[in-house]
């Protein structure tokens, strides 16, 4: 099988490959053929997909998407992107109601790849709350086309959506590199859900936009330690000079992760931050002093 595919990629003989494919059970073509395809990109990949598409394989994959075991259904949903068209789209839309949450989310990702994903809020209703807890949601959100980012923003700001889904939407927005969402994400940094607030602060830090300084400073005092940690990291990334004092206070925070983030943020801020770290390290023994001392000594041992 693999040898035939390699030969085809060299000589481009469609007929010869089609004859080989006829002899091999479709389940094997799907397993080893698509493993080989995952190594290819561009025209070479498309040529092989075309040959696969001209056989009975697409029908077999669509049937397996309905009747296979869970692993087969997930794999079928993933490889249907190689066979675009109404039949595949309909099969994937049907799979959004599959009994397995992982199949549902795989179908949504494939529909998105085919440019046929229904509106996000409708998809959420179809795939259900269990799928909205999967980290694969991040994959789905990050692969949404640019013109659908406003839907992500709606998800991020919608209070009654699951915090995990909202946090994933914020994460995807922040990775898009689009600064126009900074203002909206500032509101999310004050969200009552720590998961959403922490994600918004991570996004603000990633944007490194100075306009977020006030929000980040306010979040350094948040009662939730994960929010404080993200705020400290964001303060370092943005390089907020006004954060030196509150970050120095956070060197004595009750949570190690917050203290560590505050120490590194002070380092990132530059001269003023380093000065504060060195001053704290010279003080009497305390939690803050120990943190500052550890942060300053990190790296190659003397």
């Amino acid at each position, binding site marked *: 099988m693999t040898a035939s595919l390699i030969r085809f990629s060299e000589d481009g003989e469609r007929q010869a490959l089609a004859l080989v494919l006829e002899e091999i059970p479709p389940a094997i073509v799907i*397993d080893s053929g698509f*493993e080989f395809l*995952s190594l290819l990109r561009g025209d070479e990949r498309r040529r092989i997909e075309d040959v696969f598409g001209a056989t009975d394989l697409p029908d077999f994959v669509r049937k397996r998407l309905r009747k296979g*075991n*869970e*692993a*087969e259904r*997930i*794999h079928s949903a*993933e490889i249907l992107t190689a066979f675009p068209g109404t039949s595949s789209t309909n099969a994937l839309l049907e799979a959004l109601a599959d009994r*397995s*949450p*992982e199949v549902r989310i795989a179908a949504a990702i494939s529909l998105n790849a085919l440019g046929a994903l229904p509106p996000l809020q409708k998809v959420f209703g179809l795939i259900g709350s*269990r799928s909205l*807890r*999967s*980290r*694969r949601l*991040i*994959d789905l959100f990050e692969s949404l086309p640019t013109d659908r980012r406003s839907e992500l923003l709606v998800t991020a700001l919608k209070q009654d959506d699951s915090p*995990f889904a909202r946090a994933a939407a914020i994460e995807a927005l922040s990775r898009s590199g689009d600064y126009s969402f900074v203002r909206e994400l500032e509101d999310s940094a004050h969200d009552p859900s720590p998961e959403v607030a922490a994600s918004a602060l991570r996004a603000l830090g990633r944007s490194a936009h100075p306009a977020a300084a006030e929000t980040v400073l306010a979040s350094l005092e948040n009662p939730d330690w994960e929010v404080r940690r993200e705020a400290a990291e964001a303060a370092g990334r943005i390089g907020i000079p006004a954060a030196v004092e509150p970050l120095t206070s956070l060197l004595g925070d009750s949570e*190690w992760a917050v*203290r*560590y983030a505050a*120490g590194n943020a002070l380092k990132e801020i530059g001269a003023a931050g380093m000065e504060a770290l060195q001053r704290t390290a010279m003080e009497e023994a305390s939690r803050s002093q120990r*943190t500052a001392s*550890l*942060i300053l*000594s*990190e*790296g*190659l*041992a003397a």
Partner: protein
Amino acid sequence: MTGIWHDLLLGTAGVIAWVVIVFGLIQTIVYLLQLVIAAYALSKRPPVARSSLLWHRYSDIAPPISLIVPAYNEQINIVESVHSMLALEYPAYEVIVVNDGSKDETLKRMIEAFELVPVQRSYEETLKHEPIRGIYASSRSDRLFVVDKSNGGKADAQNAGINVCRAPIFCVIDGDSILEPDALLRAVQPFIEDPERTIAVGGTIRIANNSTIESGRVKTIRLPNKLLPLFQVVEYLRAFLMARLAWSQSTRSCSFPERSVFSGGGRLWR
């Protein structure tokens, strides 16, 4: 007088016999129940996808993992074990070998093999353990750290590793164990599919005595030649494939405090 002692002895022996019989029966019933529950759990479990598929599916979203390896007098195989751990198929992981005050050349051999240099790495002593004498990083691999500490036992070494590690998920594995190349990718699946409700997952541990191992990977699987290791194979199958699956199925709705720490190896914890 002899008659009284005779009756007493007979009575005691009778009680002990009944205790043994009753507990034996209870144990057998529990094992049978576990077998049924484990069979049900296995029948519901989807077939495992191939590792290339898992990589394609999860590599971008897989959370970082710290592999903690307590090592005590492991000079014979520690270098090969670490080599195999550094060759695992997983996008983001660190290997933290904790030399638990070994009396042999465990540390020296690692320093030579991986060109270790002393480093300062900040950590919090959240869990108590014997003092750390030094932390080393490898010039040959960014993934490898070695913690050298005074001897305190395996659990103590695990605690030190947990304190020093920085990934949100950790896995404790013995220094003489070998992981399948895609083991982390498979084990992390529940953390990806349901991160909010997953706090720990377990793997299956097998006995590799008499199997052929090359470059830290099992090439040919064979049963041990000796009787005791053969019993151990059966016991491991019972413990990992039957008991754990059954308890896991029976306690799915149990909740644990956020900072629970459990002992044991070959599992991933958050």
